[in-house]
């Protein structure tokens, strides 16, 4: 168990800076998920913690010890790669035992540790097999096993589930979570999948273009996104964003619609409302021309356009609604607590 601290960590490739000063404080045994679109620098950040990339500026510390200059092997970490990175010419047992053999651990202890990991991951019947004889999910488990047997201070996961099919992904997600809880090892997990981030994280870090936009518990980020980016990245379908102007008691949208929020707002703003928070209401302030609708089963996604504007808008209505049953223009109520207001220029959250 260990703490992990990143202080103003920066990374440049040549003249281009890709990570612009990230601060993270990970407590002992905490599961932190870094989530962001591809190219946001999340994997680079993880590789810097692993020691596979150099740190341009700032400090990475494990258990309060600066590790910037240490080789990966001297950092007491273990990493699970996206493509598993198993050694193809070794059996499952040897794959897991490799690190321990290099550490010159006595043979009986290696056998005991591998057996324990195999039991935990239900890999016992496969110990003699080569990686190519395993399914994707099993390979994933071997990669996890290789990380576990070393009993590292910190686990690093680099999109470990993105090569699995949807069903297996959900299953492995639960397994990873259960395993991490059980072992209590501090973990840093990188993903582009916001559902993974929401379900796995004790705290998540939303990254965008090399900046940590928001750090917080998943529901905290969902309920009070600090920036427009975090608001749109977390939640599916993503949050509706309507440009408007601040007013005495709320926001006036660009088509003149007045959305009362019960508080004064100033300046040019972006009004964010999650699709699941739009409630059909004949007297509601928001009028949307109904377009396509997508029944997903438990709910129906109704796509549309704000009347008198070009702004696209999605509402997620519980239950099944046929396209023909919906009025051409549907009015919605906007519950004030579900309305998020962001500064149009900076994208920062305004008010509560």
């Amino acid at each position, binding site marked *: 168990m260990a703490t992990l601290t990143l202080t103003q960590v920066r990374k440049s490739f040549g003249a281009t800076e890709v990570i612009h000063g990230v601060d993270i404080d990970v407590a002992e045994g905490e599961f932190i998920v870094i989530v962001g679109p591809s190219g946001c620098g999340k994997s680079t950040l993880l590789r810097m913690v*692993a*020691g*596979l990339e150099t740190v341009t500026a700032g400090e990475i510390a494990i258990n309060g010890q600066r590790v910037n200059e240490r*080789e*990966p*092997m001297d950092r007491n*970490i*273990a*990493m699970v*790669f*996206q*493509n598993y*990175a*198993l*050694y*193809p*010419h070794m059996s499952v047992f040897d794959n897991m035992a*490799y*690190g321990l053999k*290099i*550490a010159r651990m006595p043979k009986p202890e290696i056998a005991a540790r591998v057996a324990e990991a195999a039991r935990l991951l239900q890999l016992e019947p496969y110990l003699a097999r*080569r990686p*190519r004889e395993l399914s994707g999910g099993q390979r994933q488990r071997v990669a996890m096993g*290789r990380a576990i047997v*070393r009993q590292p201070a910190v686990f690093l996961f680099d999109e470990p589930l993105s090569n699995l099919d949807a069903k297996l992904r959900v299953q492995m997600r639960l397994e990873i979570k259960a395993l991490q809880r059980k072992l209590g090892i501090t973990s840093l997990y990188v993903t582009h999948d916001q559902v993974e981030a929401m379900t796995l994280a004790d705290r998540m870090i939303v990254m965008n273009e090399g900046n940590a936009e928001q750090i917080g518990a998943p529901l905290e980020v969902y309920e009070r996104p600090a920036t427009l980016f975090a608001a749109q990245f977390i939640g599916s379908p993503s949050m509706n964003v309507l440009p408007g102007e601040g007013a005495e008691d709320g926001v006036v949208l660009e088509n003149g619609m007045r959305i009362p929020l019960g508080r004064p707002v100033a300046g040019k703003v972006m009004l964010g409302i999650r699709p699941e928070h739009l409630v059909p209401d004949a007297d509601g302030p928001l009028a949307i021309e109904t377009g396509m609708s997508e029944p997903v089963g438990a709910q129906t996604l109704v796509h549309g356009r704000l009347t008198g504007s070009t702004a696209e808008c999605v509402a997620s209505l519980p239950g099944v609604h046929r396209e023909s049953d919906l009025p051409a223009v549907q009015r919605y109520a906007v519950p004030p607590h579900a309305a998020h207001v962001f500064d149009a220029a900076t994208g920062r959250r305004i008010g509560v």
Partner: protein
Amino acid sequence: MEKRVTFKGWLLPLLLVAPQVAVTAVFFFYPAGQAVWQSLFIPDPFGLKSQFVGLGNFEFLLGDPYYRASFVTTAIFSSLVTVVSMGVALVLAVLADRLIKGSGTYRTLLIWPYAVAPAVAGVLWLFMFNTRVGVVAWYLGQLGYDWNHVLNGGEAMGLVVVASAWGRISYNFLFFLAGLQAIPRSVIEAAAIDGARFWTRFWTIVFPLLSPTTFFLLVVNIVYAFFETFGVIHTITSGGPQQATTILVYKVFADGFVGQDLGSSAAQSVILLVVVGVLTVVQFRFIERRVHY
């Protein structure tokens, strides 16, 4: 699914393979058949008539101490050429693989020697090691070493091995580099995180993963050392001194075209054919199975 073309008749597919079959027939089956046929006869010195001797030529060869010595010479020579050319190529490829800046230039320079014909390579090395005017020989002389491959069999062997291996390094380098670059980076990184330092990584991960490439090169290089080094040996030592560098293929030439003993020469080439055939089959049967993971 494999893409497969299906033909309706016989004629077109036959015509399509005909050129290759013709080339193989004219340049391989016909001469090989001739060699087998000829190996059963002893022609008279003027080539006017020849006498059927059955396996007499083979019997004589296997009892001939010079021929048996040539077998040993060939074994030493081809092992050395293979080990030197593959070893040096692997080291260079590992270095080139680690290189980021200027790797293009480095690679191009390393590939150049492959463009030099074996006979020309032989002449180049001969000039450098010439006992009277050779640069290297002169420097060795300055250091107090009296280089003379014309008299010293060991030095002659060293020189032909170096000259033969030199051009071959480029070829092996290309394959090794491609092999190295096909190893996923993340596997190497995983090993680094697992605590393996460079050499441990190399011997436990990189080298085993490179084994299919190594095996292929082993086969190709042994065949090269057996046959294609003729030009080098002919230009540098002509098999001398005292047959110290007479490998089997050179002896075929020397006995047949210089010594005019066509029957023996033919028998030797048949033996050579069988030896290389057996060697290749053995390699594929027993080694190939172990190198694929």
